[in-house]
């Protein structure tokens, strides 16, 4: 199997697994216990907190709180800020957020909040003048992602944070889930108040996330119960997962594999765009404005899900923005916001490279893909229909 879907989730790294292993065995204590075993667990949790804090450049280790996943962190950050500012009913976010933020903000609209949805240009980039203009005295929160999960396009959170500080009283929440472990992050030098991350995107197990809450910001407790996580989120600490996240953060910080991942991604992207007809990059062509591991490429006039299934048949895992299930049946909101035309958006495939991919795997993918695209393109009626300008019956 060739796994090129590392933005969906990642394999737990052997170093991470080794670190976790004792905590699934003899080190089974509760960090809240006063005895020696409990104290040892607490030390492990504290160390992980430090490791997470180091990776994201937190000024103080107490700014890191463990959660169960990125979505929980996003929900807590947004709900928490709004609860502390009951008179401010305005939120600024973008049209290309992950569902955790996007769907929550849609829900908040029904709960009486006004949401300004910032659009993006065809490169997937924000217009910061629009952001500035959207800020109001009653804006409670600005929430943007750092890296788009589908295209890898980066939002300039330093600049966004500066604008938010200059032009409003709002707090700034960043969904950093897709970026952590892939690019350097230094929150202490950035005007970010809350920052969500998730372990399984950087080779920790699923079921562990964290929320960075800048010192001085007090959010209501998210889970009421015992005094875990400084009383901010009750529930017995998931020590094996927490230890795993810490080890993964350490690995991301000391590992020198980032350049290698970028080289593999570049090779894949360059060759596809060069050799496959009607292949187009979704997202900024300038690679410094994207994650180093992600390529979102549209194969115009063919269906992404079809491509995905043929690649799957060949043992290659990717994902697509054009999901067709019995329930949902639409193209990706991110690509729609970027104004990618339908017949192009529906053929989008996201390749996301990770630390376990090899050069040989990239070459295999490059050898399999053109034939699949050619076969599907020959089947597609799109180009001829578009050229003939015929109307089609709608369903």
């Amino acid at each position, binding site marked *: 199997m060739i796994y090129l879907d590392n933005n969906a989730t990642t394999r737990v790294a052997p170093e991470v697994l080794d670190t976790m292993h004792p905590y699934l065995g003899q080190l089974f204590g509760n960090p809240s216990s006063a005895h020696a075993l409990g104290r040892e667990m607490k030390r492990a949790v504290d160390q992980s907190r430090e490791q997470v804090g180091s990776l994201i450049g937190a000024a103080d280790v107490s700014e890191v709180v463990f959660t169960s996943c990125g979505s929980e962190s996003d929900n807590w950050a947004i709900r928490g800020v709004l609860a502390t500012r009951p008179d401010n009913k305005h939120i600024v976010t973008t049209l290309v957020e992950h569902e955790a933020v996007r769907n929550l903000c849609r829900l908040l609209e029904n709960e009486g909040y006004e949401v300004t949805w910032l659009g993006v240009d065809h490169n997937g980039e924000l217009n910061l003048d629009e952001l500035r203009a959207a800020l109001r005295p009653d804006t409670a929160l600005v929430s943007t992602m750092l890296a788009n999960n589908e295209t890898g396009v980066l939002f300039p959170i330093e600049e966004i944070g500066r604008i938010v500080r200059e032009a409003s009283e709002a707090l700034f929440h960043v969904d950093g889930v897709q970026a952590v472990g892939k690019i350097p992050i230094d929150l202490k030098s950035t005007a970010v108040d809350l920052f969500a991350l998730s372990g399984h995107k950087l080779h920790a197990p699923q079921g562990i996330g964290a929320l960075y809450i800048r010192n001085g910001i007090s959010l209501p407790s998210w889970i009421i119960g015992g005094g875990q996580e400084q009383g901010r989120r009750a529930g017995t600490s998931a020590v094996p997962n927490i230890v795993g996240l810490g080890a993964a953060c350490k690995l991301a910080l000391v590992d020198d594999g980032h350049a290698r991942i970028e080289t593999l991604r570049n090779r894949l992207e360059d060759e596809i765009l060069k050799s496959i007809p009607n292949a187009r990059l979704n997202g900024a062509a300038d690679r410094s404005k994207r994650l180093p591991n992600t390529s979102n490429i549209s194969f115009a006039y063919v269906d992404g899900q*079809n491509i995905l299934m043929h690649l799957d048949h060949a043992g290659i895992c990717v994902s697509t923005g*054009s999901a067709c299930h019995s329930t949902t049946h639409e193209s990706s909101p991110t690509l729609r916001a970027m104004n990618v035309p339908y017949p192009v*958006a*529906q053929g989008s495939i996201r390749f996301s490279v990770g630390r376990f991919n090899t050069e040989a795997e990239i070459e295999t993918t490059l050898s399999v893909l053109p034939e699949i695209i050619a076969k599907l393109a020959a089947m597609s009626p799109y180009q001829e229909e578009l050229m003939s300008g015929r109307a*089609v019956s709608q369903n």
Partner: protein
Amino acid sequence: MQLCDHFFNPRNVGDADEPSFTGRSASLSCGALIRFSIQVDEGHSISQAKFRAAGCDVLVAAASMLTAQVEGMNTAEAAAIGQEPAVLSEQMGTENARCVELACNALLDAIREYSNTAREDWVGDEVLICTCFFVSERTIEREIQTRGLTSVAEVTRVCNAGGGCGSCHQLIQEILEANDLPR
């Protein structure tokens, strides 16, 4: 199983040889597009059925299965299959009824194009209305008058007219209106 087979090895991909009749169907929500083309012989049987599609696995498999099923059928039989996407969905074991329906609609659209042409080209003593079941205007009028029929559904029940691709429903409606005399 059938779904998988027809998806990975779709039958009858391409365009039917000329003269052919083409039907189309598209989804504005996901961008799927399908084109069905058929060739019909003098005995009103589908001698060739082909498709081209850009859509999900279900759409491709449904279209492939439809082409395989309708080849050799007359247009009435083929239209009956196109009218029953639920049956095809069940054969495929899919819950994605929308994409199966999209394929069926393209087939029906192709049959209608054939029917409209066949009706226009028809040279006979009586005007032909339903080309699937070969029912003339005079037969339909006679049934309407003798039985006092008032709807297209009633006409179809009595003489089959309109029971195939449905391209003549508007014509039957017009005949009904012309014969709606005070009694």
